[in-house]
């Protein structure tokens, strides 16, 4: 059995892709419903980002076939990406502090 055939078996049939597609459409629709709610911006942002993360997870695992890759690679992608994003979040926070002239980084 070739590697490609094995991959095809691992990733399942077109039915699975269709289910993931419908789920992604539903989640995208949910974001629009959240946008229509009468809540404050921070709550709206939290809910929308949570839905976006679920969408991204589904797309990565099933559309990009990360689920059928080796677990070590899956862990590598997740850990590397999350650590970069967290680092960036804190890095930007410090930059923002410098920008507005607050302690301790502006001194």
């Amino acid at each position, binding site marked *: 059995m070739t590697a490609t055939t094995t991959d095809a078996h691992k990733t399942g049939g077109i039915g699975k892709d269709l289910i993931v597609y419908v789920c992604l459409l539903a989640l*995208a629709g949910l974001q629009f419903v959240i*946008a229509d709610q009468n809540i404050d911006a921070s709550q709206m*942002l939290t809910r*929308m980002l949570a839905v*976006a993360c679920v969408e991204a997870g589904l797309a990565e695992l099933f559309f990009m076939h990360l689920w059928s890759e*080796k677990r070590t690679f899956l862990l590598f992608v997740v850990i590397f990406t999350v650590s970069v994003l967290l680092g960036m979040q804190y890095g*930007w926070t410090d930059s*923002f502090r410098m920008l507005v002239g607050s302690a301790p980084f502006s001194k």
Partner: protein
Amino acid sequence: MSQADLTMEGHSAGLTVGPAFSIPTKKLAMWLFIIADTMTFAACLVAYGFLRNGTPNWPRPFHSITNVALMTFILLTSSLTMLIGLRSARAGDKAGAFRWIMITAALGIVFAVLHIREWLELIDQGMLMFKNPWGTGLFGASFFSITGLHLTHVTSGVIALIVVGVRYQGGRYHADDIEVLGLYWHFVDLVWMFVVPLVYLLNLSH
């Protein structure tokens, strides 16, 4: 055993070592590119978040979700057609794979046209890079930067889809190449899932 034999043995032993994570090198390279590109988009979106949070008169110029909903639908559907194209390629159906890849490229073009049309409408309403009639001028800069970066990715993806599709049909590329390109296309779709809530839905005028 001579020094030459030892060197040869050592060299061939090096060649038998498999690629990292046991995945093809091209695919690994694309994943590394995707992770690097994630940083680019994350930097833009995080910077946008700080600007939006720190600016009191942030504009909310979007009145309707129709256009952005249609664009989202088209991009998600293009991911599905890309997957069908990949499945056709793996099954050895060259004509089918080419057809689905071209459908994906066509959907990408429709997305880009809708995006440019939206830009032109906003420019007609007076929104430019550093000024707009609704509030802080930073809005135009961040909106055009983020959506422009994404649109550049979509345009590059469409060109790549056409080139890879044609070369696949000509026998120069294989199913693996389509899979690698598919990763890029799904990533473009994935980024849009974050751009929509942050840039569009949070700026809807209720």
